[in-house]
């Protein structure tokens, strides 16, 4: 049994959080998803170095780690923009006009879900029901859930992001 643990890809302190998750789970292969969650939480996305490090540490084939990272919608392999906007496209939100919101965003900023504006300011994502259907249509702006939206209100918020900082 090889007892030397692979070294993290860099000096970055965030790798300690990742190691922490793996240690808590006894470096068991079944900690793969938990660990990828920690990677994404810490770095914002999961890159190849992270996948290699995690798969080597948990002794899981890289192909399997890659397969898992791409299977679940929640994981992203691309860096995200400065800000993120998640538009809910669940049934209740759809009925109440989520598509009009996405269309307006596309017209104004030229991005569809999964894309980031060229200046790297805003990433647009979509979600299958955020569980706040009572407030449909709903979106999440940098982690803050906002309900009862319409296209103009969403555009206004995104304009602030693109204009400012």
């Amino acid at each position, binding site marked *: 049994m090889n007892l030397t643990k692979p070294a993290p890809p860099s000096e970055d302190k965030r790798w300690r959080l990742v190691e922490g998750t793996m240690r808590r789970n006894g470096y*068991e*292969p*079944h*900690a*793969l*998803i*938990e660990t*990828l*969650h920690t990677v994404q939480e810490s770095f914002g996305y999961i890159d190849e170095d992270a996948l290699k490090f995690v798969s080597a540490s948990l002794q*899981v084939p890289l192909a*399997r780690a890659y*397969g*898992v990272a791409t*299977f*679940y*919608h*929640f*994981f992203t392999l691309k860096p995200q923009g400065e800000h993120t906007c998640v538009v809910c*496209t*669940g*049934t*209740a*939100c*759809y*009925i*109440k006009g989520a598509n009009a919101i996405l269309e307006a965003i596309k017209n104004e900023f030229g991005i569809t879900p999964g894309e980031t504006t060229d200046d790297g300011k805003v990433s647009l994502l979509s*979600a*299958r*029901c*955020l*569980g*706040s*259907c*009572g*407030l*449909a249509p*709903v979106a999440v702006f940098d982690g*803050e*859930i*906002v*309900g*009862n939206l319409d296209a103009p209100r969403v555009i206004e918020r995104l304009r602030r992001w693109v204009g400012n900082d």
Partner: protein
Amino acid sequence: MTNEELNAIAKAEQESKERFEHEVCVCTAAGCLSAGGDKVKDALTGEIARQGKDKKCSVKGVGCLGLCAKGPLVAVESHGKKDKLYEGVTLEDVPAIVQTLEATETKGAAAAGLERSMDEPFFASQVKVVLENMGKIDPEHIEDYIAVGGYQTLYKALTEMSPTDVIGEVTKSGLRGRGGGGYPTGLKWSTVAKANGGATKYVICNADEGDPGAFMDRSVLEGDPHRVIEGMAIAAYAIGAHQGFIYVRAEYPLAIKTLKNAIRQAEKMGLLGKNICGTTFSFELHLRLGAGAFVTGEETALIASVEGRRGMPRPRPPYPAERGLWDCPTLINNVETFANIPAVIREGGVWFAAIGTEKSKGTKVFALAGSIVNTGLIEVPMGTRLRDIIFDIGGGIPEGRRYKAVQTGGPSGGCIPEQFLNMPVDYESLQQVGSIMGSGGMIVMDETSCMVDVARYFMEFCMSESCGKCTPCRVGTAQMYDILCKITEGHATLEDMDMLIELSDLVKNTSLCGLGQSAPNPVLSTLRYFKDEYMAHIVDKTCPAGVCKICSPAKEPVEVKS
């Protein structure tokens, strides 16, 4: 933790509560939180202190009060009795509400405009079993749960009942799984209990809640997490498991935070972990986060995901009851199923079986959304008429529009038209009209919704959520989606319709898991009740609801008959 200790905590909590004349409960569940519930709570605390009433009034955050669309909601309990509910509370309303507290009988003028009468059908027609503590207890304090009798049933099960007794009670209750399938819970428990003798066993709580439009499980986890933990611990005792997992979707950060806190508190009090309540029974509970794949809610896929693999279904049998997590016998139940257990054990199976209909016992929590006045969370006895749910409790359709259909069961379900409004809502009746109970999402649609577009929406959902493992589902849903797109764009022929029906049949009967097997349901049910809308799109090239952007003139010569 002994029974005396539990009682002592309950008594101490009760006494500290009685020191206050008024208890102000602010909803801080995700819905109201996004409307500023936490800020209202802080403002109320500050204002009460400023007006020098902090000796008489306490403030606490509670789980969902039900009327989520009208948040932030504030409920006031005076002298131990719930008596006022304010909706849409803003920071400016806070002083007036605090004033009203002391003018015991007369209402504060400004705050009165926000007041909802508790006699409305929305409140009066509900029967709360699963939601009995919702909006009453602070989910962050285990003592609050213990004060309303929490963990007493676990104690009772461990000290006074054998595992067989517990299963007997669950069987007697007639409780059926609330995750969608409606499988008898007692039968499932006894199968796992009997599975290969001394083997390691697991309990899993399915909190993936993938159906769009459903938020019952989220609300229960956020508002009364200990109830689910207690239900799981009782289940573990009954089937002989010592380890359990709650698989909760990553899209629910507040539920995750609440659960983590609740598990830690229960461990500290010896209600989870080794030798629970001083008995020989031990039960460890872990949290697992989903990562956003609808199909992972399917039980075999969920187990794969807990094992750290891709969440793809596998053929059953063997069922998880025989070979589940790491090939060990595994009990997997939905959040609401577990949340029913404390009530079943406390009041007895016979009591539970007296609620509901002959084959569908107990109550059901529904999430009302879409075109309905009272959007939110409700609980009614099984067998309640659809009309009563939508028009009395739900308050009907807003803006004087007309009811068109209610969609139940999410992507596996169907649409129920007006002619069935008088039908009782239970597993069998819903199935008879071509829909299903599902997990309890109800999305109400009025004449501004196009039923063909709705079918297309669900097909898009199933197509992109298909895991791709089997061909009929992977390819079939894509073909069906293409046809539905053609219809909504006005390019379809009647032959396309025939193809759509043929594909529905094929995908339904040859897919491996429930996703593919039920993917055609929204299409079949809209075809059954709203065929005229399909015809209008195909033959007349119009969308009666005005939703679809029919590209006219049609690109192909499709004039079939007029």
